[in-house]
């Protein structure tokens, strides 16, 4: 039976064949599946480029070529049905009600060679290290500000800078325990960091669930490839949560703090709580007494030591931050400051993943680690600086302009694709509040073969690896590959109609 109309997953129409619909793969010629595929000028994740051919995907390409397009679509349909029934969904709020949507899943995997991964893993680890050093510094001696590497007002004037954190020591000086780094790959095949997510990065549940789904519907593709597993993420996360728990507690109680069932990422919270084997609590389940955190159980109050919170700073403690928040726990900041409870991520990390601070990360890496960035940034101009603003205004039609405070791809103007009116609107906003914007050249995001109604076509992808850090950093092999499903679009966010792909990191021998 079909799911009800209003709950149909996004992109479902792709899999409906209507009479007049043309399918690019002629029947009876299954070997043609990839033969008419043309990635154009973009770097292709499955084929590579002329300079950098993807030799590591040869076997996968061969297997894919042998498939029939209708068969591929049938399997894709099975996956979407299963995701929907399992409730692997996020919630989209419309005017009228909340609708469960699946994150559309494309069944052609994105493949990363062992060599590429070694590079990415080192780059992500380096970046996490620098950002943690930066956070420790700005909440302690502020050397980087005193040395004039980063403008003071950019840090202290940032709405995510938390004075409550000044002078507070956190275990292992780690602030960002869970980090999601958004990477893109340019026309030359060079990975670049587009954005850091150091507050409450989401998407890791899809990485693991996509793999499960892939193994179920595509056993013949997965077989003997040698793909690095992703299903130990929960164990690694729990280990980190135990490691940062207050000293002297034998068997710390870890919980996951969720805003609740109406949060759009609720599925992920469930997933992580289950994988860690810890209770998923909401603010109303917790109380603070004598600066200690307890959860309400059937047998009264039980102590809580380590909290993986999926709640922004602002909602965490109505006494300290947003007084209107009903989602948080009054008094939790005091418990945290006394060292009676651990929070991951720490409070006040938002200043490090700010889009304006992002521009300074390469200099941060140099400053703290005396290294060059392993993964470069996308060239970025900070419109608060007069030269940069002028440059941005002069080249508006060529640049991507982003507000620094927004998440989820909202408020972005992509110059080459914007209408005259949109450009003028953007110009006005820039002039009105230049420090709220940064600009970047359009990155020609790499593409990956993707199932579309017109056959296999190139679609843009990005990559969000996830890093867990307590004493040391561990990076989940691969990460979330988001794919922009609409032809030509560059925005891959799930709230903007993006989907995802399984991401394979090949084992050592295979590259």
């Amino acid at each position, binding site marked *: *039976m079909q799911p*009800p109309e209003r709950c149909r997953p996004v992109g479902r129409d792709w899999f409906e064949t209507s009479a007049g619909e043309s399918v690019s793969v002629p029947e009876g010629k299954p070997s043609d599946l990839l033969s008419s595929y043309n990635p154009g000028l973009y770097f292709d994740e499955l084929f590579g480029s002329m300079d950098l051919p993807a030799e590591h995907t040869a076997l996968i390409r061969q297997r894919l070529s042998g498939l029939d397009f209708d068969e591929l679509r049938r399997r894709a349909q099975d996956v979407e049905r299963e995701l929907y029934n399992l409730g692997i969904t996020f919630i989209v709020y419309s005017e009228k009600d909340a609708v469960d949507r699946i994150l559309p899943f494309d069944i052609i995997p994105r493949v990363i060679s062992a060599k590429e991964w070694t590079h990415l893993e080192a780059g992500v680890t380096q970046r996490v290290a620098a950002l943690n050093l930066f956070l420790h510094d700005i909440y302690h001696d502020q050397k980087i500000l005193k040395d004039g590497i980063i403008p003071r007002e950019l840090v202290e004037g940032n709405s995510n800078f938390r004075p409550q954190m000044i002078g507070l020591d956190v275990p292992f000086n780690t602030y960002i325990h869970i980090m999601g780094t958004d990477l893109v790959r340019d026309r030359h095949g060079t990975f670049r960091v587009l954005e850091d997510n150091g507050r409450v990065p989401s998407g890791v549940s899809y990485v693991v669930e996509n793999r499960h789904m892939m193994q179920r519907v595509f056993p013949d593709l997965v077989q003997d490839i040698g793909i690095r597993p992703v299903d130990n993420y929960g164990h690694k996360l729990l280990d980190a949560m135990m490691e940062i728990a207050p000293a002297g507690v034998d068997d710390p109680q870890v919980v996951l703090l969720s805003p609740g069932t109406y949060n759009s990422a609720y599925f992920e919270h469930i997933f992580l709580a289950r994988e860690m084997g810890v209770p998923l609590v909401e603010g109303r389940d917790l109380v603070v007494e004598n600066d200690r955190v*307890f959860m309400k159980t059937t047998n009264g109050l039980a102590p809580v030591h380590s909290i993986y919170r999926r709640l922004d700073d602002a909602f965490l403690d109505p006494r300290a931050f947003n007084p209107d928040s009903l989602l948080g726990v009054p008094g939790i900041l005091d418990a945290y400051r006394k060292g009676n409870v651990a929070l991951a991520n720490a409070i006040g990390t938002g200043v490090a993943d700010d889009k304006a601070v992002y521009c300074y990360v390469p200099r941060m890496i140099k400053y703290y680690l005396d290294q060059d960035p392993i993964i470069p940034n996308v060239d970025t101009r900070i419109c608060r600086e007069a030269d940069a603003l002028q440059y941005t205004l002069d080249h508006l039609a060529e640049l991507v302009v982003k507000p620094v405070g927004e998440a989820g791809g909202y408020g972005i103007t992509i110059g080459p694709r914007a209408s005259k009116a949109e450009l003028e609107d953007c110009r006005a906003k820039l002039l009105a509040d230049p420090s709220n914007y940064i600009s970047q050249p359009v990155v020609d995001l790499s593409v990956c073969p993707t199932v579309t109604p017109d056959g296999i076509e190139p679609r843009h992808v990005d990559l969000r690896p996830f890093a867990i850090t307590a004493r040391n950093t561990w990076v989940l092999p691969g990460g979330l590959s988001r794919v922009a499903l609409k032809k030509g679009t560059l925005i891959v966010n799930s709230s903007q109609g993006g989907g995802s792909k399984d991401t394979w990191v090949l084992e050592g021998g295979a590259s």
Partner: protein
Amino acid sequence: MNLLARYAESIFWMARYMERAENLARILDVHETFSRDTRGVTNWFSIVQLNADEKDFFSRHDRPTAEAVIHYYMFDTQNSNSLLSMLHMARENARALRPWISTEMWTQINVFHNKLLEMSTSDVPMQNLSKVCTWIKEECQTHTGITEGTFYRDQGWYFYQMGKYIERADQTTRLLDIKYHTLLPSPVEVGSTLDVSQWTTVLRSTAGYHAFRRVYPRGMSPTTVAGFMLFNEGFPRSVVMCVRQIDGVLTRLRSRYELRGGAQAMERVDELLSALLSRPIEAVLRQGLHEYLDWIQLQLITLTTEIAQAYFGMDAPVAVQAQSQ
């Protein structure tokens, strides 16, 4: 292993809503079968009475026609006693419990709810009502089976049982109450075909007809049917059977899991059980069945409140310095 108070509450209510949905599907189904006789209209109205929904129902409907009653109890989302509303509530509780319950339990409720929701957009024709009710009943039973086979046996399991049996006991008293009164025979009807078939309906609604026949091969009287539904020790929907289960569950929660709360609830269940066992059905009928059933319902409502206070964090939290593990 601690159980979050909120989880315990959600488990309790998920069980109750699923049990309630099954009962309603049974009642609708059986009524459909027997509404073809001359008292059809009366019969449909009795479902409204059974749930004490008269006021709400007549605020939106003029007459209790078959169509109106069926829609009201199947798909009316404004009616919290409709199957769709119940499934919605069961699903919302299950959603809150997803970190706790098995994936199979969640998936089944999710798919069940979504199918019912889809069905609600098209009318269920009378000819299909029985089929749909059977399907709903079976989905509820599937839920029961999956739960039995996958629910981890710790505190949560006992809260599930508690919810289920409290709801079941309550449903049985409601069914008996309304039936006993609407069916209280006028002198001419005693022993008539109609009278017997009405009592058969009651028994069928609770899947108790064949068992009843086995226990009472000859004759069917209001007294034997009421006695069977209240006091029979082997019938899974009898009030005594349900209360015994509640009693056992509470005892185990307090002994095996050393839960400190619940003394009041325990006392109430003990009292309720000994009251049930102390009087034969004839005496109950003499002194008024309706009052008796009302009293049982009140006990169950109070019990629910006491359980909520003891285990669901309803009390102002008293700082019990719980030891680590």
